């Protein structure tokens, strides 16, 4: 019989642009110890470990094997999953299936990255096909700029609309002691910041960070004994739809649309705008915060700027997005998707401290990466049927 799965504990490091005081394993260990502490469990209680990062950011082969001193994997089952930027969400989904299958009762999930150890753009560029795409691709930002341009052309949005999203997330980060960038920015500051690739300004995008996150999932047989009000996983979806840059439908995130439609159907969500209480969106740049919530079905095509300007996604609004400050405040790439999951879990469990949204019933977390890929998870306070 498949088991229902809940998150019973989370932990993350205090993310920084670089952490010279620890090597990769030691960084992982910090997040692991915090998650164990949050769940009041010991390493011996963990039945299996799922770990993920993007190989080329640290240049370590067989990371699952290398990590054991820090991840606690010595003499345990440990497995590595990696899917680029979506990795953090992918490993959470991995943990969900490991527990859901009935194989393991308590699984530790780790996402980590020490982006300061390598040339981020150089590494990301190796993701793309060496014969067709790699030579003309200029790192993540160029691709995102193309998407933003296409959206602006299709729906008449503007740079100001993007900037408003940055302002929101940077303000939210002020409530999050784990966030890397904790300084508010104004609309004018965003628009005046250096242009990286039209229309993306410096303050429209994420930093790169050193950080780790750990999440513990447990089966329904033991979850409530560990944590009286755990975060139940209602469903997951992932679409890694494209392989070549030219395949994508620029201005619309097809993977988000397909994946979320599947997720709402599976979970019985009819009106996501009404039924979701909080969203932790893997949003590496501001315009994504406009485009992708339309593809999720929160609002219709072209309607996001108005929705956001009206304050609906701010703290206190109808549907807060990124109370943690999101990716624009913190981005250790392999961990980022898992941080979204952990933040959504904390919202459901009522553990989000200063950034808590009141009365959370359903939370949504996502991962983004690769060639316009999206992974996502629906979290809920009640046990699913």
């Amino acid at each position: 019989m498949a088991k229902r799965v809940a998150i019973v504990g989370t932990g993350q490091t205090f993310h920084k642009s670089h952490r010279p005081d620890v090597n990769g394993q030691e960084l992982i260990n910090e997040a692991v110890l915090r998650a164990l502490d949050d769940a009041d469990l010991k390493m011996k209680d963990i039945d299996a470990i799922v770990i993920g990062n993007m190989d080329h950011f640290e240049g370590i082969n067989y990371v699952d094997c290398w990590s054991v001193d820090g991840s606690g994997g010595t003499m345990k089952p440990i497995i590595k999953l990696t899917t680029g930027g979506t990795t953090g969400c992918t490993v959470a989904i991995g943990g969900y299936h490991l527990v859901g299958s009935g194989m393991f009762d308590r699984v530790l999930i780790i996402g980590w990255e020490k982006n300061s150890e390598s040339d981020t753009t150089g590494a990301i560029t190796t993701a793309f096909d060496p014969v067709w795409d790699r030579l003309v691709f200029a790192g993540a930002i160029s691709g995102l700029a193309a998407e933003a341009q296409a959206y602006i052309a299709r729906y008449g949005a503007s740079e100001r609309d993007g900037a408003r999203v940055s302002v929101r997330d940077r303000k939210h980060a002020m409530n999050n002691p784990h966030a890397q960038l904790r300084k508010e920015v104004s609309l004018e500051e965003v628009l005046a910041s250096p242009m990286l690739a039209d229309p993306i300004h410096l303050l429209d995008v994420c930093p790169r960070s050193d950080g780790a996150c750990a999440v513990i999932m447990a089966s329904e047989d033991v979850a409530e004994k560990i944590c009286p009000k755990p975060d139940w996983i209602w469903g997951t979806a992932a679409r890694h739809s494209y392989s070549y840059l030219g395949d994508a439908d620029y201005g619309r995130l097809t993977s988000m649309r397909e994946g979320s439609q599947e997720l709402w159907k599976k979970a019985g969500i009819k009106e996501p705008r009404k039924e979701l209480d909080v969203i932790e969106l893997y949003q590496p740049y501001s315009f994504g915060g406009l485009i992708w919530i339309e593809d999720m079905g929160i609002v219709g095509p072209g309607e996001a700027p108005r929705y956001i300007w009206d304050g609906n996604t701010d703290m206190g609004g109808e549907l807060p997005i990124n109370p943690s400050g999101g990716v624009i405040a913190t981005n250790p790439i392999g961990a980022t998707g898992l941080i979204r999951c952990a933040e959504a879990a904390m919202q459901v469990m009522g553990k989000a401290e200063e950034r808590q949204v009141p009365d959370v019933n359903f939370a949504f977390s996502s991962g983004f990466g690769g060639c316009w890929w999206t992974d996502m998870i629906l979290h809920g306070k009640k046990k699913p049927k």
Partner: protein
Amino acid sequence: MDRAAIIGVGTTKIEKSKVGETFADMAWEAVNKALSDAGMTIDDIDNVVTTSSDFWDGRTISCMAVGDASGAAHKNVSCVEGDGTYGAFYGMTRSLSGSYKTTLVTGHSKGSQSVSSLITNSAFDSIYERALGMDMVTACAMQARSYMHRTKTTPEQLALVSVKNHGNALKNPLSQLPMKITVKDVLESEMIADPLHKLDCSPISDGCAAVIIAHESVAAKFQQKPVWIKGVSFCADSFFFGDRDLSRAKALTEAAKKVYAMAGIKNPKKEIDVAEIYDAFTYQELMWLEEMGLVDDAMAGKLLEKGEFNIDGRLPVNASGGLLSGHPVIAAGLYSMAAVVRQIRGDAGGFQVKKAKTGLVHGVNGLGGQSHCVFILDQDK
């Protein structure tokens, strides 16, 4: 726990260099073979797990290269980085967790496109070890020395593994290196890293394999009689060589213990009919056999000499020719799995063993067999 079964397998030929094919071309071939074997179309596949290594492929997000060719464009998909057995394990959990009923698992590698020494050197710790310049070959050579010292296994016994496996490959049209050789040939081949000669080592090959794993509720619906997964377990030892006893494989012993318990096997020596074991190097076949309790400690070399592990022996090991006859890293475990599935179905053609009701599949991850994964497959549920 619910049960899962393997209902389709597809493998490309293992070759030194598939110069005319990209990763996607290999995946296309393996996936179509698996679908055809199962009597399924891609629409019967609920979700996909690819297995690949960013290091071996020279691209970060290596799964991107094979997603479309594996039919994953509009399906739920994920990627495991590690040996194919780990990919199959994850694929199995996805068929059992209630979300999906059928999972397609692929694994690929093109050794011809990589400089294996540099790639495996990156598995060493960058702060304390990497600069010394060891790689998988020298690491395993060091382990071979340690194992031979403890068990008194001889170079001739190691060589005999190579003779057996390359000889078995003569009956396997998909293998890369079918060869009729002698112990003398192996001992006279170039010494690569003491004590391993060239013929003690597997090649680094190109290949892609795919398996389809289904939940018990649908496993019998398709073309093949299901081959049941009665048990699976994996485990990792310490990372630093200096923390481990290299002459032992603690993690394998632990994983084997768990998998026998899961499969209800009390006497593995008697109850396992056929095995495909990770023989990247000759000493490994002997060492893993002992460490997983299929053979008494330090006895594998002697029993090999008696013919116990030949195709017509008591426990046929690597009847397919093993990795010594063709080794696409990462895909390896799925090739082993496909071979055992074919044995259990009675479909292994030239290298079919007489009795194959219960089979063992073994895969390895990391340096010197740090992490091991073991499956028990069976004709019966």
